[in-house]
């Protein structure tokens, strides 16, 4: 039976938007099905994009011609480059977003995307054809057929909101959960579990005494997310900083048994890095105060997001403790905080393209895979959308490795190690952190987008111009060198070892700056600021990167040994039960992945390799 669509994306959250756009960009006839058109691009929680690790993900999405970076640039109202004083590898772009601007820009972007159709509908069930996912059925009976389906339903699967003793089935506040779909997934025999997260109360801006607060401004020179953005033109705002008091903590402690989390009502695990204020008070009992950022949710929005005090206490307790916070004595709550518990699918059920191994044709992306955060969701959406499109077109998948991208690190972590709490990106998760920088995401990835034909013409042109200039500049820097006496004359002291040092070598000395270089070679002064910055970064990290090269080669060698899908680990003799169970559960696709599974020994690895080799031999 012929399908109307190549790819159906279910869910218009951050994963879904990026998936739909990517699939359409890759040339697939794409349908986005989501509950309501108006909530497409909604930020469920904190209206902010980026940060350490997360900002890196946004840059990578952008380098693959994704949309999150550009949307953030036209809706960001408080850009700050985190770790500005540290090295380029660990600088993270972040902004607070105007929630409305973000949503509107996202909706406009998708509306203008060719190959993409958007319809409202609540998906109840999926269509399977001989075990392969072939479409979706809405609650009103509409059916849609496709070559592949990308499921990005976020926190909606059997979502349950908790506030005090109250329990409300919901995907987000005032939005109905998805029950039918969750049952469909259970029906596939997938390993699933419950996770939880929470959100703070929203406050009325005009009820806050701003004059009592310290204010934090945006950076004077906002650094955009997208390689396509030249300048941020959205007005920038300040946010307020306040703190909880001992009185706040006293009220929370006294009412702790009324918190949904502490009364034992919630079974799912929450993230340790995003604790509720109840958690903070209990776990860090010795601290008498915690910082709170008061972030306006938009330029002309009367709502403020108090960052740092998510809570599932009953309304009256939330009111009481909020009023003990400086600046909030007369605060008016627009909406109370809550905790939400939802189903997720154990990501070890997925292959490296994010397709379910037990249900080919069905890709999962976003919070449904046990992650948290818009950026993590969008990055997965992008990869799932692309790969669903490629599969429909009969093309090879795109898989990014740990040595190429944070996206690769995240997906590899998810599918080989699973999650025990909602997964969030940190730079410390990347073993090749110096190489996977926000500044060079395009140099690492855009070429792939061009090769696989999913980059737009504007992107291609801009990228090629930049790379042309960069290559020329690198060549200039490589070919210009000084002997030690010449260097000395230029005011650069180096060992008198007779070795010539080129521009990169010279820049690696801590006291050498670009002015000293252009003093020697005036022709280098014409290079753009952006190009010079890249040259300086190259020089700064070159020693470390060279040392890492050997590691990366060894890493790639094991990555290149592929374990075929459906490989029967039970048929490998000599594997301990423990190793076999772990391998069967994670179903690694490469020997490298297998080696990262905890409990898989060198012996087990070699046995697997031996088995693969024998099969190869038998086959030839």
């Amino acid at each position, binding site marked *: 039976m012929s399908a109307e669509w190549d790819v159906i994306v279910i869910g218009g959250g951050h994963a879904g938007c990026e998936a739909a756009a990517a699939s359409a960009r890759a040339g697939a006839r794409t349908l986005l099905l989501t509950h309501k058109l108006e909530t497409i691009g909604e930020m469920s929680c904190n209206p902010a994009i980026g940060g350490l690790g997360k900002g890196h993900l946004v840059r990578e999405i952008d380098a693959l011609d994704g949309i999150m970076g550009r949307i953030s640039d036209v809706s960001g109202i408080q850009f700050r480059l985190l770790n500005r004083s540290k090295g380029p590898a660990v600088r993270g772009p972040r902004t607070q977003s105007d929630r409305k601007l973000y949503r509107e820009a996202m909706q406009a972007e998708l509306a203008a995307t060719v190959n993409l159709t958007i319809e409202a509908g609540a998906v109840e069930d999926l269509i399977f054809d001989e075990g392969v996912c072939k479409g979706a059925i809405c609650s009103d009976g509409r059916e849609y057929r496709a070559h592949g389906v990308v499921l990005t339903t976020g926190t909606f699967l059997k979502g349950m909101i908790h506030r005090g003793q109250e329990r409300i089935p919901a995907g987000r506040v005032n939005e109905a959960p998805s029950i039918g779909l969750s049952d469909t997934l259970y029906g596939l025999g997938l390993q699933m579990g419950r996770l939880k997260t929470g959100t703070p109360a929203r406050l009325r801006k005009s009820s806050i005494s701003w004059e009592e607060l310290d204010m934090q401004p945006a950076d004077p020179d906002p650094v955009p997310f997208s390689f396509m953005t030249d300048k941020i033109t959205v007005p920038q705002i300040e946010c307020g900083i306040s703190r909880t008091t001992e009185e706040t903590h006293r009220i929370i402690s006294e009412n702790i048994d009324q918190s949904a989390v502490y009364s034992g009502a919630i079974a799912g695990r929450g993230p340790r890095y995003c604790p509720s204020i109840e958690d903070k008070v209990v776990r860090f009992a010795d601290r008498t105060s915690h910082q709170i950022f008061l972030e306006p949710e938009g330029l002309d929005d009367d709502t403020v997001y108090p960052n740092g005090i998510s809570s599932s206490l009953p309304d009256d307790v939330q009111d009481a403790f909020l009023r003990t916070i400086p600046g909030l004595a007369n605060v008016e709550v627009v909406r109370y905080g809550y905790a939400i518990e939802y189903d997720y699918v154990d990501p070890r059920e997925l292959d490296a393209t994010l397709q379910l191994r037990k249900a080919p044709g069905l890709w999962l992306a976003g919070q449904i895979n046990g992650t948290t955060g818009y950026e993590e969701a969008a990055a997965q959406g992008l990869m799932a959308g692309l790969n669903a499109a490629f599969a429909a077109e009969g093309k090879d998948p795109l898989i990014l490795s740990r040595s190429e991208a944070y996206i690769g690190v995240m997906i590899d972590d998810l599918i080989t190690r699973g999650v025990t709490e909602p997964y969030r990106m940190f730079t410390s998760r990347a073993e090749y952190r110096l190489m996977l920088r926000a500044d060079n995401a395009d140099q690492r990835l855009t070429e792939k987008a061009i090769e696989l034909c999913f980059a737009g013409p504007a992107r291609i042109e801009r990228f090629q111009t930049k790379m042309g200039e960069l290559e020329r500049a690198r060549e200039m820097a490589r070919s210009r060198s000084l002997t030690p006496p010449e260097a000395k004359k230029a005011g650069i002291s180096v060992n008198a070892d007779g070795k010539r040092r080129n521009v990169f070598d010279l820049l690696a000395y801590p006291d050498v700056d670009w002015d000293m270089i252009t003093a020697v070679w005036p022709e280098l002064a014409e290079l753009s600021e952006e190009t010079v910055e890249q040259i300086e970064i190259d020089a700064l990290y070159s020693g470390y990167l060279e040392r890492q090269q050997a590691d990366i080669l060894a890493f790639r060698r094991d990555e290149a040994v592929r374990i075929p899908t459906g490989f029967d680990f039970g048929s490998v003799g*000599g594997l301990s039960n423990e190793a076999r169970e772990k391998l069967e559960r994670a179903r690694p696709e490469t020997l490298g992945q297998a080696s990262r599974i905890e409990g898989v020994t*060198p*012996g087990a690895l070699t046995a697997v390799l031996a088995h693969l080799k024998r099969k190869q031999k038998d086959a030839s």
Partner: protein
Amino acid sequence: METTIYALSTAPGRAGVAIIRISGPKAGDVLDVMTAGRRPAARGAALRRLQNTEGEVFDEALVLWFPGPASFTGEDCAELQVHGGLAVIETAFETLETLGCVPAEAGEFTRRAFENDRIDLTEAEGLADLIEAETEGQRRQALAQMTGALRGLYEEWRESLISILASVEGEIDFPDEGDVPDALSHRAFEPLVILIASMQEHLDDGRRGERIRTGFTIALIGAPNAGKSSLLNKLAGRDAAIVTDIPGTTRDIIEVRVTMGGYPVIISDTAGLREAVDAVEAEGVKRALDRAVQADLRIGVVDARSDEELADLQGRLHDDDLLVLNKLDLAPGASADGAYPLSAKSGEGISDLEARIEAIVQERLSARELPALSRARHRKNVETASEALGRALSQLAAAPELAGEDIRLAIRSLESLTGRVDVEDVLDRVFSQFCIGK
């Protein structure tokens, strides 16, 4: 190009034979150097004197030579069946290192054999067991001689690596958190300094390498006629020193080399400590004192019948020195706190003293270190780690991401000692120490 690897394929012990296997392109050259050009015929075994790269002979061994590809691993292979003493094994290892060989990784011999198709793939079923056994054997050997103190040391290292990295990563990944101090990584400074010092000490380890080459020195000291020369002869098993009942017979220093606890030991007999009657003897006494000061261990010898001698010597001995009450046959039942009552004449009580000396030698020369098999690799890893941490220290303030890189490198190279430090361990530490969560 493939490296040339080596490993001990028998448990290191004091007695018997130890088999060292070598595999890789350099195996032949290595044999040529170690046998002074007398490499045995292919697939043959021959008795050869083994020498180090300086040309010093250190053992006589059965040497086997299997050129590839018809060898166990498919590469050029050699086998040295040396005398099992630790000193010999270590000299062999040192020589192999100097010649550019590297200690084998866990299961590497079997893995190479397999990769070169030397193990029939139908046998591959048993491969995991084989490698597990090889790995497990290596691990057990590595742990066998690891004393509680050493294990404690590695645990300390692991702890401090986690907390050092947590400070650095915490500062990098959570820059905008109210609860995370700005200069968090500065907290890594002190633990880094301590850790580096601890590794340096571990590497220096009381000039251990030197002592293994030159021998562990023991000085016998005591009053004239206490029985020092007699004791020396007993320990040496031959008449090395002249024994008379004329006080002051031993005027110069007599040294004998013996093997105790698998290590070379040099025992020196010295002139008696008393007012010298002539110039020659005076010089002897002076040297005795010098020697006693320099020695790794002093054994005080007193005549069990003389309380003055006992009192005099007790003042000269260090806490961990030994005291012998000699002539037990003339003073049956003599005893003193911590002293070894014995008779150098009849031999009674000597074996207790010997056992104690052996234990001390082993403890000082090997227990603070790793067992022979894994030592070379571990040593190299500790060196790499300590260098990396040194660089990290200098980058801590200016570029925490580079410090982080070096600390991660150090952690990777120490994994064989400390066990794996996963990013989750580090994040755990960050999250339990700081209240993260805006």
